[in-house]
């Protein structure tokens, strides 16, 4: 069995290429495997009940043929790809699906998935949009519902102890991912942007403890190896919507640039803040998933009761973490990327550009339709950008 022999980066690549191999083994052993979309369906709560979370991704290399009859083409091509793959039966092994309001299309996809694929279990978390105090209480209430739904599925009670233990093991994963990202601060970085995606996708395809073991292996391997990424002229930070395939990173890193840091959801975004362990663990979880995770889906302002508005201050509050990333990882340019029709990220583009301009960090915006063919014209644009910042 491959899982017993390969380790570290090799294992990550294997899982990247054949994501379901491990969870199918676990399922055969009687474990439940739960599909989830995006980064919001509180994985700790699945882990606490010994349910294996398995993130649903699309496949950029597979033409969309089935999803058209359920969702028009003018919608997130990533989600259409997820649906297409689902309709082709490739997620049939899942015991269910958990979705949340990541965006309009994400919520619609949830209804379509339930209607068309009839999963044995489904649950939708209607996440609030703001960081209002009321929203935080609402998020906690929603997690209480989610807890009940998962308990109903597993037939077990989710004790506070089990949930706390799950939070610790997921926090350990977050710490390990951050440790991995530390290795990208070096010049050249010890691990490339494309390899990082492989590793993140791999850990999102197996139980958290196995993911932690894999991360440890990867960290010690990349520290030791001599065939890591070459030093390039530019160090880039990539911000944007989902990138769940190495193709774009490979395209960028095939030019004279290292991708040293990212703010994307198959990257640093879900891992850079820990969940605080609170008396009622749901408080810490609600706070983390609503407040800590900085995704364009959420409406953020400094103090929402403040009746004064200052655009630059507002941008600073929302995006200064990007400056921190750029400073710490010594990035000299930012690629803003998004799949076409992603509204939540699209509306942030002008503001992020204004912010980056204000701190003197050059940026370029790339939009693509989640196909391999879309990358060729983008290559020319990235090349042009590198020439400017080089």
């Amino acid at each position, binding site marked *: 069995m491959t899982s017993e022999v390969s380790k570290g980066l090799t294992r990550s690549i294997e899982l990247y290429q054949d994501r379901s191999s491990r969870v199918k083994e676990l399922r055969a052993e009687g474990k439940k495997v739960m599909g989830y979309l995006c980064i919001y369906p509180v994985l700790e709560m699945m882990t606490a009940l010994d349910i294996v979370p398995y993130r649903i991704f699309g496949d950029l290399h597979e033409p969309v043929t089935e999803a058209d009859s359920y969702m*028009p083409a003018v919608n997130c091509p990533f989600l259409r790809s997820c649906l297409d793959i689902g309709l082709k039966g490739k997620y049939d092994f899942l015991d269910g699906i958990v979705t949340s309001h990541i965006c309009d299309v994400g919520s619609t996809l949830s209804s379509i998935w339930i*209607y068309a694929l009839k999963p044995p279990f489904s649950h939708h978390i209607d996440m*609030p*949009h703001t960081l209002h105090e009321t929203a935080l209480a*609402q998020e906690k209430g929603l997690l209480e519902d989610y807890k009940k739904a998962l308990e109903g599925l597993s037939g077990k009670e989710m004790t506070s102890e089990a949930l706390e233990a799950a939070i610790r093991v997921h926090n350990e994963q977050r710490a390990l991912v951050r440790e991995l990202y530390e290795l990208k601060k070096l010049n050249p970085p010890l691990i490339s942007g494309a390899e990082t995606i492989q590793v993140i996708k791999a850990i999102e395809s197996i139980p958290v403890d196995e993911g932690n073991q894999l991360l440890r292996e990867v960290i010690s391997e990349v520290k030791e190896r001599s065939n890591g990424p070459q030093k390039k002229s530019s160090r880039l930070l990539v911000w944007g919507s989902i990138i769940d395939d190495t193709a774009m990173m490979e395209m960028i890193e095939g030019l004279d640039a290292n991708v040293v840091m990212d703010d994307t959801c198959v990257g640093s975004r879900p891992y850079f803040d820990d969940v605080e362990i609170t008396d009622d663990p749901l408080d810490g979880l609600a706070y983390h998933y609503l407040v800590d995770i900085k995704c364009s889906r959420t409406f953020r302002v400094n103090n929402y009761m403040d009746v004064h508005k200052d655009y630059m201050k507002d941008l600073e509050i929302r995006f200064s973490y990007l400056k921190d990333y750029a400073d710490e990882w010594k990035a000299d340019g930012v690629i803003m990327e998004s799949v076409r029709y992603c*509204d939540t990220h*699209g509306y942030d583009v002008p503001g992020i550009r204004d912010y980056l301009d204000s701190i003197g960090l050059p940026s370029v915006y790339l939009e693509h339709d989640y196909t391999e063919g879309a990358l060729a014209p983008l290559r020319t644009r990235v090349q042009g950008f590198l020439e400017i910042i080089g």
Partner: protein
Amino acid sequence: MTQETKPRALNRLKSMYALRAEVDRMYEGGVEASEEGKPVAWVMLEGWSNAILNAMGVKTVFPENYSSLCAAQGMAEPFMERSEAEGWPSHLCGYARASVGYSARMVDVGGKIPPEAPGGGMPKPTLLVASGETCDARFKWFQSLGRFFDAPVWTLESPSPGIRERLSSETYERNVQFLIKELKAFVAFLENLLGKKMDWDMLEFTGGGTNEINRLRWEINELRKSRPGPMHTRDFWSVMTAALFRGAADPEVIIEGHQKMYDEVTERVEKGIAGINRPEKYRMSFEGLPPWHTLGFLDQLAERGWNFVIESAYRPMRPRTVDLSMYDDPMERYVRRRYRSLEESLQEDYEPDEVEAIKNEIIRDGTSSRLGLKHISDYQVDGVVLHVLLTCRATSAGLNLLQRKILDVLKVPSLVIEGDIIDASAFNAAEALRKAEAFEETMDHYRKVRKELGMPW
């Protein structure tokens, strides 16, 4: 011999014109208020904030509606081009992009209304009220306007649970409490911004006015079930702006306008007069948002006997009488008067045995294939036009699923037309018309299928 001229394809309601004129007055009122130094809010259409703002003496204008007005007058294009030049991606909501361009132009002219602005324009906002209701664009868009105005943005939360979750009474009660607290926080914010206290009696008045308008709109829509359909979708779209995009506290004029419309539609029903001046060959439903730039397309379809008797967007809610006497808190009354549970909606809309069947389906499958189709059967529709919009995910993402459900459950076919609310270049009228002609055979076929199955139409 004098040549007889054929009447126009649409038989427009006379009462529509007065209500439509109120929309112009809404914009005029916004400009006047701004000139007098009174607060003006740019607001997204949603169910909660307008009555509160109006009760606090804030004039409201609606960029969403203003963009459609620009499109209808062929003026949206330059604003959208400007939005792209400012770096807003071109796939974003057409309403948003037109308002971004408009805002950029305002900055060009020193915060004044740009001279080319149609309908008198929208004045600079004192605040922006965004919403989590219906679409993400509503809060992302307003936040992104920060580049042009240092006006604070408040995003109103609006819960929208999954279907199974919506059946739970606990979820309903939690959402009621969430709304109450959220709206109270909004009021506190407004009090701070405006330096004055909320007038709760005024809220009862403006909120009550909104309910009365909704009731009349509902009654009018009930009349539209008649054969032939007495009121065309274009009239509905023309007047919905006056009902939903209200700028000031006094609802009387709008109520009166709707009362007149109710009377006119009643008369049409009694006399068997249709909303089109051609024999009603096909009763149609329009699903999605209107093509504001090319509304005349529906007139061309009316020439062929297509009578759009109902539509999916902007529909009024079924009026309800709830006993609120046990609630002292005016905000609680305000919320409970409108916010209803799925259970309650099912009880109102379906026969008892059907309610149970739907609930069982939802509990078992997470959804019911019968949800969202009621207007198609109630209005005995022969065909549905699905308007898939290039720039609106919220109203387009589910249309293909709807198409399947309508056909599977009701044996009613749909015609998919691609276009946009604002961007005329996304719509090919000639091609759409060709598709429409061919679609008539499909509608004829399914009429027979329904008959064979013993369906009522």
